[in-house]
């Protein structure tokens, strides 16, 4: 009744909307009619005067507009594998490690092919495509110009061959040829960017590729590694040598060097070079200042001094009429993260400075601000409040990536929600993520898994189980492969809202996620199933599940059965009246040198009793005696009292009863 009432309400609501839409349509038609009539009247008046006809402008479509429109009609299918894996059924990832492996192998296959094509252009000369498709043809990666000339130097620079370019430059200098300023700039840029080392060839063979992949998967760890320069800046390397040889230096040369030094960790050197620049009465450019601001916290010890250095740099920027950009402010905020308590006061004023200058903040800006207010141990109210502010500010906006750090925002925002146990805020973050193409800002698969892991953890903690399961089906495993801890969270949520009947399905998921080899997770599952008695159907499914658990774990060689896991399985089987299977599990106890509890044996005996299985009872008591359990005599006497036994059985049992009694009189007293 209630349901039907709700249906009626639903229909009314829907129809109401339909009606309203129609009415709105009518209204807009009407108003449109008016305006067109007005427009018709207007030209009539004009007609005599000029007779001008305004031809509407041709609408030009972007080449991908049609495809974008089509793509927006496709919804995500939570039951399907990611699109990249749909071609090949062999490449269907079920766990996060498989996902990593498959996507990386796909990528590396592509890179290998590209590398082969590029390094053997003579085999790929035929151009089938009409019109010509440049990206299908081999790129030239080898040097063609051999003579000593500026042209050859340019070629080496464009192919990013650092050492070859430096050699060529030296040869040119020895030959007495002057190299143009522009080429020198490019050369310095190249050397500083790659720190006087040949860069990793894109699509190059083995090691480099693996390293890049490692960075991608390691994510956050990779990020810290990215911040710490891999190759330190060497004293008097080629960049500095060439720089010192230059007859005249302009600010671009300085900028290239300073950026290179900051990028590769020579912070103090960068600042001394900046003083040289000022002594030469030159002005820096914005990139130079951005680099210096990032380096500023490295040079000072105290938080106050760090900030003073940053603000001094900013003041110099404004004196030198250098206009700041988004990256300037992001660098300031990033540097502020290392300024301790100063950050709280200065972060917001920096944000307002941005606003005053007319630069709209990116996600990285907000990420840095959140970090400034974030203190993991004692999150006061301010932290979530700031996040709330940020989210109200951002609500419904379509974001674009403007800073490589933008991709860190979502996962850190979700961490704040999780730490504050703030479900509402978590939903707000998720909503922001679902706007437009914002999902692209979630970063690589590692960042994604962090984000969804936190979100799911928050849901399990705070949300009602039905909603949790809805999300579970939505994001797992199409977007997120939960780790064992995530599955435990889910189990706890099921327990809290007493939906333990879901456990067999969850077990299937655990299996497919490859977590069935985690003993603690399996044990927790079994314990939850065995803890209470349920309705017969549920018990039936639990027993089936327990058998499945057992067979899966037996299939593995290294399984170490714990006594509690085995007794949980036995209990579950007994509750579902699967005495035979339960007996087999009891034998496993013996085989694995585990000792069953007295309680378990008693309940087994009761199960035998209810089935009238006297032989089983005798065997049980014999098994118990084989374990040398103190409870044996009790079991034996219970079996003697309760069962209809043959003479032989009776004799065997009473023997056992007496044997244990004599060996352990204390036990007898207890019984």
């Amino acid at each position: 009744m209630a349901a039907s009432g709700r249906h009626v309400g639903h229909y009314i609501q829907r129809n109401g909307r339909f009606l309203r839409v129609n009415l709105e349509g009518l209204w807009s038609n009407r108003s449109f009619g008016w305006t067109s009539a007005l427009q018709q009247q207007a030209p009539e008046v004009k007609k005599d005067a000029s007779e001008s006809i305004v031809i509407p402008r041709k609408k030009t479509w972007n080449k991908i507009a049609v495809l974008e429109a089509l793509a927006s009609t496709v919804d995500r299918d939570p039951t399907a594998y990611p699109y990249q894996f749909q071609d090949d059924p062999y490449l269907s990832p079920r766990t996060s490690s498989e996902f990593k492996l498959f996507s990386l192998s796909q990528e590396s296959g592509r890179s290998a092919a590209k590398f082969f094509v590029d390094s053997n252009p003579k085999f790929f000369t035929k151009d089938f495509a009409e019109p010509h498709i440049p990206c299908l043809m081999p790129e030239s990666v080898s040097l063609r110009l051999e003579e000593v000339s500026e042209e050859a130097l340019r070629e080496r620079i464009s192919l990013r061959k650092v050492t070859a370019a430096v050699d060529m430059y030296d040869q040119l200098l020895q030959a007495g040829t002057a190299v143009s300023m522009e080429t020198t700039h490019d050369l310095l840029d190249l050397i500083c960017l790659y720190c006087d080392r040949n860069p990793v060839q894109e699509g190059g063979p083995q090691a480099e590729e693996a390293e890049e992949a490692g960075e991608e998967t390691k994510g956050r760890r990779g990020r810290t590694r990215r911040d710490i320069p891999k190759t330190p800046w060497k004293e008097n390397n080629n960049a500095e040598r060439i720089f010192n040889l230059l007859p005249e230096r302009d600010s671009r040369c300085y900028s290239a060097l300073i950026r290179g030094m900051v990028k590769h960790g020579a912070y103090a050197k960068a600042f001394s070079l900046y003083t040289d620049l000022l002594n030469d009465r030159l002005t820096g450019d914005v990139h130079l200042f951005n680099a210096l601001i990032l380096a500023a916290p490295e040079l000072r010890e105290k938080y106050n001094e760090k900030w003073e250095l940053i603000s001094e740099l900013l003041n110099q920027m404004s004196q030198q009429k250098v206009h700041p950009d988004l990256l300037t402010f992001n660098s300031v905020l990033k540097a502020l993260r290392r300024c301790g308590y100063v950050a709280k006061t200065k972060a917001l004023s920096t944000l307002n400075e941005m606003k005053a200058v007319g630069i709209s903040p990116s996600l990285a800006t907000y990420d840095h601000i959140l970090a400034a207010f974030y203190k993991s141990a004692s999150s006061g109210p301010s932290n979530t409040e700031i996040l709330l502010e940020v989210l109200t500010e951002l609500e419904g906006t379509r974001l674009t990536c403007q800073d490589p750090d933008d991709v860190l925002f979502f996962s850190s925002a979700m961490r704040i929600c999780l730490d504050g146990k703030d479900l509402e805020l978590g939903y707000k973050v998720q909503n922001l993520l679902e706007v437009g193409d914002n999902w692209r800002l979630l970063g690589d698969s590692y960042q994604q898994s962090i984000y969804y892991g936190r979100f799911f953890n928050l849901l399990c903690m705070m949300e009602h189980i039905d909603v949790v399961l809805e999300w579970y089906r939505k994001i797992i495993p199409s977007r997120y492969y939960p780790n064992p801890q995530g599955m435990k969270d889910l189990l706890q949520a099921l327990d809290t809202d007493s939906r333990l009947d879901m456990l067999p399905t969850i077990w299937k998921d655990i299996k497919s996620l490859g977590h069935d080899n985690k003993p603690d997770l399996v044990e927790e599952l079994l314990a939850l199933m065995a803890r209470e008695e349920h309705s017969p159907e549920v018990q039936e499914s639990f027993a089936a599940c327990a058998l499945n658990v057992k067979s899966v774990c037996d299939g593995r060689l290294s399984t170490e059965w714990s006594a509690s896991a085995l007794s949980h399985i036995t209990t579950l089987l007994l509750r579902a009246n699967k005495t035979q299977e339960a007996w087999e599990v009891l034998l496993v106890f013996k085989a694995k040198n585990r000792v069953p509890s007295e309680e378990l044996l008693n309940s087994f005996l009761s199960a035998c009793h209810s089935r009238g299985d006297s032989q089983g009872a005798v065997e049980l008591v014999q098994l118990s005696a084989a374990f040398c359990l103190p409870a044996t005599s009790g079991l034996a006497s219970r079996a003697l009292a309760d069962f209809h036994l043959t003479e032989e059985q009776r004799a065997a049992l009473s023997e056992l009863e007496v044997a244990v009694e004599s060996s352990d009189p204390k036990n007898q007293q207890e019984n």
Partner: protein
Amino acid sequence: MNQFISRTTIVARNRVLYVHESFLSSNCDNVFRTLNKVGLKTFCTNSVRLCEKKDNAGTSIDSQTKLPEQKEEQRVLKTEDRGTADRQADDNSKQLLAKSQQPKVDTGKSEKENLLDLLGAMKVEVTNKRKLKTMKRQQSIESAAQYKSKPADMESTISMFQKATEEASSQSETLSPDLVAAASAAAATLPNRSRAESELLRQLRERKTLTEAQKRGDMNNIGVIIADMKVGKNSNRQNAWPSDQIRFDEDGRGYTHDRGITGELAGVRKRRNLFQAKRLNIFSPGTEEDGIKAALAKPTLWDMEFAHQLCQSTNQMPRNGFEEMIQWTEEGKLWQYPINNEIGLEEEASVPFHEHIFLDKHLEQGFPQHGPVRHFMELVVAGLSRNPYLTVKQKKEHIDWFRDYFHHKEDVLNEADVYLT
């Protein structure tokens, strides 16, 4: 627990509260009498209890409530009390969800001792996450609606309450009605509404009592208070979420912040805009020219590297076939939409079609007017005019080649007498 206490102390210190002399009197009768004298502006601990006795019939204070006080006055007191509780709630907004058990007050003791007992018996209950959620949901409902939904017997209270609020607002401290709304909203979500509400308010009031006690110099007694205080936790799993006092959760995530109703209300009030802080005042807004200048500059290697980095960080695999096609289009592998047959023929776009077809004019110079060569060339031109695969330039080159060829062979042709000019 220590944190809880210290916070309370802080609250107490921060807050300047109105303490009436009458409160010091040891006899509750006196309290009521003074109350009558002073009017409605006094805060009274006992008054609410008068109205909530149904749950606590056994407490000694009940016997006092049965003293010949007029019913109306009780009501007034109750509503007044709510008004004061309201004020109290300003401070203790976060504590709203904590409920205390009914304290036992002995008449024989002094008022100060009463306070201590009161606190000693205080038991902070815990609430579970679902309750919290329902509260959050309910909170959006207008407080007015909440009042309307109450039973009729509450209505008189409400009118009194409004009156009391008006009176109370004339005091040194003004009250915010949304706090009371929050209290009743919270109470409305609990099963026993009126009881829960009164419990909430009592808790607030007790807080105030503590405040006053400490204000009067009872600070040295805080140790006793702490010693006597006991925090009960329900063993029921449903109540697994401590709402207030100690918020170090089992998962060790640290001190967590409850965003209950009051927290949210406080947030609304205290709401600090991100963009209201002072700016650094270093830069002046830039002009358009800067941007244009930057855009005109040739991209350096650094710019390319930065773009590559951006692209790498956002690079996501296509989610469906269309997105893959977008990717291919951008790489130039796919025919572009909308379909255009002349794609890739950009260099020919400016050439009109007659240039392709009427090629006779190229035969005007350098070729004989008659004869087999002319005939041959006319056939060549006819063929070229039907060839869609060559550009006009290529066609001209083709004709030029023949012109050169025949010029070179001019001697031979003249001998054969076929080259006629």
